């Protein structure tokens, strides 16, 4: 199993899944033409990863996505559901979701995601200067 790293583009986020420190990071806007094509390898990676890690592993997941278009948000929802399932199975999964102060759309979006989930989901505001 190797780390998953995907470079950021204008319409896709940075993906940094670090298996050594068990930290998953998704940062950036997401509005690719074909969201499923972009997220499919990420789903596959996550599926395999979740089967390989042992139960005690603390998995930290970091999101910072100022804009997610409709089809990307479906994919993000699917990612979150995979994590939710892992959590339901007893794994230690925690999500930190960052959003910029004043970016109410991003906050609303995050809140919508949070609504359907049971796993720890922390909303953290970033100062605009950061």
């Amino acid at each position, binding site marked *: 199993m190797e780390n998953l790293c995907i470079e950021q583009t204008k319409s896709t986020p940075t993906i940094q899944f670090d298996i050594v420190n068990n930290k998953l990071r998704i940062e950036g806007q997401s509005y690719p033409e074909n969201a499923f094509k972009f997220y499919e390898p990420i789903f596959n990676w996550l599926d395999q990863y979740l089967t390989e890690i042992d139960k005690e592993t603390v998995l930290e997941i970091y999101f910072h996505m100022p804009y997610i278009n409709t089809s990307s948000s479906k994919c993000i929802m699917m990612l979150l559901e995979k994590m939710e399932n892992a959590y339901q199975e007893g794994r230690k999964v925690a999500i930190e979701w960052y959003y910029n102060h004043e970016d109410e*759309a991003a906050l609303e979006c995050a809140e919508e995601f949070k609504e359907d989930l049971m796993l720890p989901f922390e909303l953290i505001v970033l100062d605009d200067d950061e």
Partner: protein
Amino acid sequence: MSKVTSDQNIMYDGSTMKVVSFACIIIVLAVVFTGSISYFITRNAVVDKLKSRDLVYIIESATAKIDGRIARARETSLLLARDSAVNEWVLSGEKNEQLGKYAKDKLTDMAQSYDYVNSFIVSVVTGNYWAEEGRLLQRMSEDNADDYWFYETLKSDKAVSLNIDYNIGRDNTYVFLNALIGDLKHPSGIAGVGLSLADIAKEFTEYKFGESSALWLVDGNGKIHLADSVEQNGKNLNDFMPAAVADQIIADTNSQQTQPQILEYVNAAGETVDLAYKRTESTDWKVVLQIKRSESIAVLKTIKMNTAIASLIAVLMITLVFYLVSRRIANPLKRALLLTQKMEQQVKARTSELAESNEKIMDSIEYARLLQESILPTSEELEDVLGFYFVLWRPRDIVGGDFFWVRRVSEEKSLVALVDCTGHGVPGAFMTMAVNSALKHIVEQNHTEPAQILSELNLQMKQILHRNHQQSFRDDGLDIAICAIEGHSRLSFAGAKLSLYVRRDQEIHTIPGDHKSIGYKASPETLTFTSQSWDIEAGDQFYLVTDGYIDQNGGKKNYSFGKKNFTTEILAQQEAVACQAAHFETVLRNYMADESQRDDITLLGFSIR
């Protein structure tokens, strides 16, 4: 670029030849310059050597030869005159037979053995002149002018006197060395030898220096007694050089000079002539040597020729080298240029291909837009259902997944919907066509309640989109807001992820839709929606908007426009609904600034009549 430059122009641009020509000119100048310098240096050296050494050497040799010959003759004369036997014989009045034989033998021996034309003993006692071979030639007489030399010599008190006699008949000059016999005060006679200058002439010719050189022995009057060319004998210096030069030589009587005098003059033909002369030690005669400058420096012609040949060879070699080098150097450049040109042409060709195929696609999409526009309600239909209204329909890619829809169900009831299908562009447009048919179908089945319509739509879209249960990650669906307007008094709303915004005076009422999307795999077939009711008052303004407007990024921090800004803008409207389109468009455009449109955007505003 108007025209493609031809290969020829690149391959044969003039710059290479210009460089080569320039280099050749420089080199020719350099070779000619150095050649000229070496020519002048060599010429000066040659002339200098000629004047300081060659001419001096020849003139000194020739002079020494003459002086040596005369000195030897002087000694011979002295030997003869100082012989006591000869003196006794003369004093005896040539009576003593024994002494006479000795003296006559000696005379003969002198002339024959030592190469003199003449030897003689003249007695004062008898006046007899004994010549070579012991002949008695004549008797001296004071009356005879030819014998004048004899009496003058006797009075000279000098042991040896030199007498030069030019014989017209023989065309020859004779030099006589006359030695006094016995006491110098009272000599008993004169003995001596005579030598012919013609004898020296042979040696003179050995000094022939060049074709134009001339070596002369001249007397105090400039008369040539001896020349390396026999025909010049008896002529005068004046015949061979300007009178002024000849006079200068003749007038130079400084007997102290031991060094040859060197001078040069230009003759009547304009040629430079170098000249050297020296006075002999034994006589006031001078040896004169002259030669044309052109002949002395004839060797330089070879240098000239060699320089010219060297220049020519150098130029040829350099031209060749430069040509080869410049070809080697210039070739990669030329190739690069050619390559660039070819690539430019290819890029042009590709670009035009792309432009062509782009044009085709654009034509196709433009046509698709016509089709998509055809499912949109006409302004008459909109006006009929909505009364006053405005609509902004901005698909991101000409066509898109957004569309709006109205339907009059009955006299009292009509429907208005705003739909945002997943995807943009052509895929989105396909979805809208399907949703449009589904809505039509649902209404035709007498489903006219908003919540009911959405449930039906979910069911039908799932059937359409996922009927063959593909395992692919494709998962499509739609967000929708739908209102049923009943008369002018009541509006019922149901939404799937989309909300209804109502402005009443200075307040915004947001009527949120359900948090459920339609048609996705995750949307269960049993999905139900809630209808919410709104009692319409005069002046109520209703807004339906897809997330494209609210999520559009821009502003200073490049955030999404946001719901708050949107509701603020609704409240900021001063004009009637029908006139608000331009305002919302301007607000959006200003917020976007240079950012591109993220999503399809549709905004529908209306106020029931």
